[in-house]
């Protein structure tokens, strides 16, 4: 009976649960789903990680390629993140060119990388105006079950912390480069941004770490990215209006989680060595 009711009146079905301060999956409003992080999962990539938050699964691979720095920024390399939402991960997506949602999320990830300064682009330069690394960071979503950006950022940090780049001897006069694949050095990571997503349900409940069902029914979404003690992104793209108290409350809640996820990433990377 409950199943039929859920299909016919999903909003009401949720409201009955939420009125009793519990979510249909048994979580309280501010509880997270379990997180699994596996680093260096793809042997052929320069750095990689798989992150699972509940059922949401994202795999992240980083490939480094040579490129020439831009004339305006001769001593900086590039970071190019790209999120793919294939039709396999959700019935919402169709094959073909990247959907609007995939483009918007890719841009949000690029903004988070830039704002948090987790990688210094100057570290990626090998010779000013001649040679630099371009890190292609590809995310593929395998299972789309809500809070995708949170999973992407955890996978991103796991992957970035396992990136090793080969040593390169570059002779600028002859434009000759010698790549030593055996001798690899890790990339320096300056900070660990952590993202937390909240949804506003029925204009009054704020739920943490939503599933895709909750996201589809929600009236607003807030993503907060913290970087140690600093805030590096408060992204609320429209939806139900919040008052400032509710917004600050979300930032406070994210703080605790930020510490926990930092430890998770550190222990996952440590287990590798």
């Amino acid at each position: 009976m409950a199943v039929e009711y859920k299909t016919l009146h999903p909003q009401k079905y949720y409201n009955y649960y939420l009125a009793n301060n519990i979510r249909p999956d048994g979580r309280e409003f501010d509880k997270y789903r379990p997180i699994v992080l596996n680093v260096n999962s793809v042997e052929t990539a320069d750095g990689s990680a798989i992150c699972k938050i509940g059922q949401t699964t994202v795999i992240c691979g980083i490939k480094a390629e040579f490129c020439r720095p831009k004339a305006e920024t001769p001593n900086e390399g590039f970071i190019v993140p790209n999120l793919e939402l294939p039709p396999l991960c959700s019935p919402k997506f169709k094959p073909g060119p990247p959907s609007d949602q995939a483009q918007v999320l890719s841009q949000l990830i690029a903004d988070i990388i830039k704002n948090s300064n987790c990688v210094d682009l100057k570290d990626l330069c090998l010779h000013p105006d001649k040679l630099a690394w371009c890190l292609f960071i590809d995310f593929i979503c395998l299972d789309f079950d809500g809070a995708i950006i949170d999973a992407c950022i955890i996978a991103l940090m796991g992957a970035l912390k396992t990136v090793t780049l080969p040593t390169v001897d570059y002779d600028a006069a002859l434009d000759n480069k010698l790549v030593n694949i055996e001798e690899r050095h890790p990339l320096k990571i300056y900070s660990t941004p952590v993202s937390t997503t909240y949804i506003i349900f029925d204009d009054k409940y704020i739920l943490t770490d939503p599933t895709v069902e909750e996201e589809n029914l929600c009236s607003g979404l807030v993503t907060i990215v913290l970087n140690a003690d600093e805030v590096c992104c408060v992204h609320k793209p429209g939806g139900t209006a919040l008052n400032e108290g509710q917004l600050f409350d979300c930032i406070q809640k994210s703080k605790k989680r930020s510490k926990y996820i930092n430890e998770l990433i550190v222990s996952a990377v440590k287990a590798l060595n």
Partner: protein
Amino acid sequence: MEKGELQCKFGILSRPDGSVMLSEGNTTVIAGIYGPVEVKMQKVLIEKAAVECHYRPKSGLPGVEDRFYESIIRNICETALAASMFPRSAISVVIQEMQNSGELISCAINAACLACLDSGIDMKCMFAAVSCFLGENNQLSLVPPVNRKEIKATFVFVFDNICGKIIASHTDGKFSESLYEEALYICMNESKNIFSFFKKSLFEREEKGKKK
């Protein structure tokens, strides 16, 4: 902390249902709105109008960053427009960037609101966006610094006019929580001036209409 002067001109285009050219300081955009109009088969929603937004940069084709702005503007319009009054139709908001000196997103959002008001489409509330900039000396300012490199962080807040709550928030750069709070209150105060500007411009538009 004086904000750049706001100037607007309604009905500059004849084809859209509502159009406006808005300048905030040295940033200018043109916004036009068509709606409710016929909707594409794949986008049709049976219970409400599909709101779409097209953002055109000053030169070249729209890129990934412009898609990001589009999605923010679309979401805000979706919240403010009474879309459920026009099921199985579309409302399309088109924004053309003319000149950008920093506060482009907030100017585009404000122009979208004025265009909606100009078209007379049903709305649940008005919305106003305010940009705030964190300069090199850790001072918050509503006017963008001339040199872009001096900007440490940018905050854009969108408020509704009924309860003054936050509809949208977009930030760029790193900052402490207290600065975020401070920026929010500065923008909240400034949004009142923008709403009164909206009101004043609409009255002026009415006056002009009567003379004709």
